[in-house]
């Protein structure tokens, strides 16, 4: 059960219309990820990393093939089912943090719990726990514009992790951070990964991130070029 795939990708193809033609972003991807993996899709811009991450995150659908997330076929989910999958099982971390600017740090982290109908005291406890994991309890009342880039990304991690999802999808999470902040963030994510056995899947071309990955999947022109398992 421990090694049953959390994410299973079968012959996945994604094409985008461009003008009168088409651009094929993913060309028959076959991959599997098990619970607790700390893996990354690595490759240059345009290699299909983000597209694959979006399909796994049920934000997009494949043109051909299938992506199964927790045994749910993404292409067969209707809007409500896809939203429920994201709400209950997936956490997202974005390059530009995507925090709600008019909400406080506390409210940003609380948001996924509001959607899951936790009661007030539970929410408060869970949010404070999450802020403690990422070391920013003192910023709970601040608003994102008052925080540094590193602090914003910590809030984003806390928001992604607060509901203890099965999978966290992180798209270039350190792209806007300096080296010291990047390492801190990555250490935090690695810690959370080992503590909660949450599967982390990155899309990155940042060497700092790559150096932390336990599994590196190189994508080139929409195809898997290599799949290296560094550490179990």
């Amino acid at each position: 059960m421990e090694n049953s795939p959390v994410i299973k990708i079968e012959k996945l193809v994604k094409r985008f219309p461009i003008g009168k033609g088409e651009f094929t972003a993913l060309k028959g991807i076959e991959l599997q990820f098990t619970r607790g993996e700390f893996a990354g899709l690595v490759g240059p811009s345009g290699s299909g990393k983000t597209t694959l991450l979006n399909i796994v995150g049920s934000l997009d659908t494949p043109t051909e093939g299938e992506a199964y997330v927790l045994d749910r076929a993404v292409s067969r989910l209707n809007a409500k089912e896809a939203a429920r999958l994201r709400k209950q099982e997936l956490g997202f971390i974005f390059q530009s943090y995507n925090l709600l600017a008019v909400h406080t740090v506390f409210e940003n982290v609380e948001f996924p719990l509001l959607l899951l109908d936790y009661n007030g005291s539970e929410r408060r406890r869970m949010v404070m726990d999450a802020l403690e994991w990422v070391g920013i309890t003192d910023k709970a009342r601040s608003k994102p514009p008052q925080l540094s880039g590193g602090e914003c990304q910590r809030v984003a991690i806390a928001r992604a992790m607060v509901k203890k999802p099965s999978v966290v999808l992180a798209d270039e999470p350190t792209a806007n951070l300096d080296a010291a902040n990047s390492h801190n963030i990555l250490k935090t994510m690695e810690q959370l990964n080992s503590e909660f056995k949450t599967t982390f899947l990155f899309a990155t071309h940042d060497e700092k991130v790559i150096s932390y990955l336990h599994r590196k999947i190189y994508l080139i022109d929409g195809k898997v070029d290599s799949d290296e398992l560094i550490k179990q």
Partner: protein
Amino acid sequence: MKTAFKLAFRNLIGAGLRTWLNVIVLSFSFVVIIWMKGIIEGWNQQAKNDMTDWEIGGGQYWHEKFDPFDPFTLSESHAPVPKEFIPEIERGDMEPYLIAQGTIYPRGRMQSIMIKGINPRQSIFLLPSHRLDTAVSDAIPALIGSIMSNNLKIGIGDRMMIQWRDAEGTFDASEILITEVFRANVPNIDQGQVYIPLEKLRSMMNLPGEATIFTYRDSESVRPSVPAGLVHKTKPELTASVDEVIKMKSVGTSILYLVLILLAMLGIFDTQVLSIFRRQKEIGTYIALGYTRRQVVGLFTLEGTMNAVLAALVGAAYGLPFLAWQAKTGWTMPVDTSDFGMSIAQTLYPAYSAGLIVMTVIIIMFITLIVSYWPSRRIARMNPTEALRGRIQ
């Protein structure tokens, strides 16, 4: 839904000045619309009250040949007081009027008038008829209204010749002395009319015991059957003209409401459209965190609509004291209303009803809901992956 309310409220409050600008404009619309409708309703009530107090009482009986728009009917529209009216007249609950055509010559000019004979001791009308109850040996005491006084430049103490034609068709003349100039908000009883004691007019016209109009005090009283030769005019029939004027006026003010609402709605529409472009990443984030696109449309619609809720609260905060103050002190028209040709007081007192306030709030809320939803529908067509990056044009 509870979550959406919480989020919408946080987003609105978090948006700061943008929200408050919309809220203030919208609250202004609430207050002005209620105030203006209150003024119209107050005017309506005032006009009817003034007509009751100064002209029509609780209702009237007209001689069947009397036509207020045709002075040539006056020579024939008079009859003896019916015996069934006598007890009511003796109690002071009914007053007979005799109306005749005549001419006055103020300062050498000629002015056609209606001479109205009224009981100087009547108490049905607010007319200061007691000022006719005076002993002037060489002239007939007379009352005129302020409009006529201004137009003819005549006032209290002025004397002038009055000419009339009696029931036999004989022309006669005498002198009148203005003993009072009254100010009423009912032009019907002012322009071109001279009031003299009833018995004096009867003797001048050689029509002892006759009258043209009988006005009774109580509109609720059970009326006897209509005597022959008279026509019963109830209060609603007599005030129908006011209703017509108010209805026409309401159409004009409705245009102003429309402009006010459009201004407020433009602010909300503009904010919604801007929000959808400016908050693309936020929309994408909501979807990534587990909202469906329809739920995001709902959230944005709710945010827009909550502007109206906040506006109602803000409007209540400053509007209720303002409206209460206006109801007490009234609104004094900046120009003289006596020349308007319709029953309108110089100071209008707005009259508000719960129905007026509730309907205004409901209408504005409903329009705000539509204006908020309209641009938000665009979100339903957004690609969340593009929205997350803020790439939608």
